[in-house]
């Protein structure tokens, strides 16, 4: 019975399975952090944006934790930028990593409370740029 249910579940999942390339780019950037013990959240933000447009998300941080935020896109030749600000508008990221299709920033939460993650993607020729933003903590 369980085997039958699992088979059905697997079939229904694979029939729907599509991969978000922007999220995959973000996850590729996350691999080194995972090796250092960061736990990557399964939920993530995603959408599309115009080149040079600024977007932001708000996220609760806990003092005592360290975070990485990973931004990914599947657009070619893109320049990505991410910064994290505390509730007073002070930048709190301590390290930035950029590579093709991704950018990541590390934050050591200075206090418990909400932060704002601001990001932009710049490209030469893509009208609507897909993006995905994930985070991990330890």
């Amino acid at each position: 019975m369980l085997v039958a249910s699992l088979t059905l579940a697997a079939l229904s999942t694979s029939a729907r399975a599509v991969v978000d390339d922007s999220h995959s780019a973000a996850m590729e950037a996350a691999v080194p952090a995972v090796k250092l013990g960061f736990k990557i959240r399964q939920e993530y933000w995603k959408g599309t944006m115009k080149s040079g447009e600024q977007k932001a998300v708000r996220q609760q941080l806990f003092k005592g934790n360290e975070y990485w935020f990973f931004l990914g896109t599947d657009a070619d030749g893109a320049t990505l930028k991410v910064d994290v600000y505390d509730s007073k508008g002070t930048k709190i990221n301590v390290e930035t990593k950029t590579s093709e299709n991704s950018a990541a920033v590390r934050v050591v939460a200075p206090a418990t409370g909400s932060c704002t993650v601001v990001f932009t993607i710049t490209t030469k020729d893509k009208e609507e740029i897909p993006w995905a933003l994930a985070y991990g903590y330890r």
Partner: protein
Amino acid sequence: MTSRPAPRVLTVLLTVFAFEALHAQSPKPAPAKPAAQPAPAESPLLPPDKVIQDKGAGELDLTQFPGQVIGEVIVPVPSEIFTVLDKLGDPDWKAELGTSPKVTFSERTDVALLLGSIVADGFIAVQAEDRKSVENVGRSVLSLSKSLGVENDVIRHCQAITDAADKANWDGVRQELDATQATVRARMAEMQDGAAAECISVGGWLRGTQVITNVIGKSYSAERAELLFQPDLADYFNDALEEMLSKAKNPDKLKEIANGLARLRELMDNGGENITPAAVREMHTLTAALVKKIITKG
């Protein structure tokens, strides 16, 4: 957004999540020291990435932000706070384990609230490294998912939860609990049932807060109590529930939870002052009452 079947990216995702799971099979790692500022040499980054040590000092006027602030909130999982509490002491997580509620609901928001609280129980069971409780959580999650019509999406996670618990792979269980919640919320959104999706988060957050306030109340310090500074989340949930009230078949329960969230918000904010022991106690009493409402009928 571009989406396509792609073996390479699947490999990356599997690598990330499998690495977490594999590395969790050993006993608990030594707690990471918070607030350390590693030097560039300690960076986990590999070439050819470009790495910059940020100097900080940047300023942003959040009231004049020129772009779009995305409304979607990703609610922290209880483990994000549990890990800090573990760094600050050695809480007795076994004492926080709940009993599996044996109750059935017909209203979808009621089922979703219960599902959220059960998933939070799973995170507590992981913290307590209690295999039996984790397996009970897996069974309850599957049963509730059936009520929501998403059993086929969740069954693989439930099996993975049980398998990981059998191997005492606690990080693996944690990852699957997070994945379960994410999968159900995503399916609820696909089914145009945003109310149920939000209720899963509300149930989980309230159960997590109930436990956290109990742990902090047993060994109070201002530093621990600061972890309860989450007024934006209380606000967000309160707004979401208020929006559901007009369409809800059982508005009394949602209204009671919304009122409780409004009071929690006041206690969590406290005008920028430290959260007092009395406020922690009131938060615990309040969340315990709301969770009781979620896991019982009537």
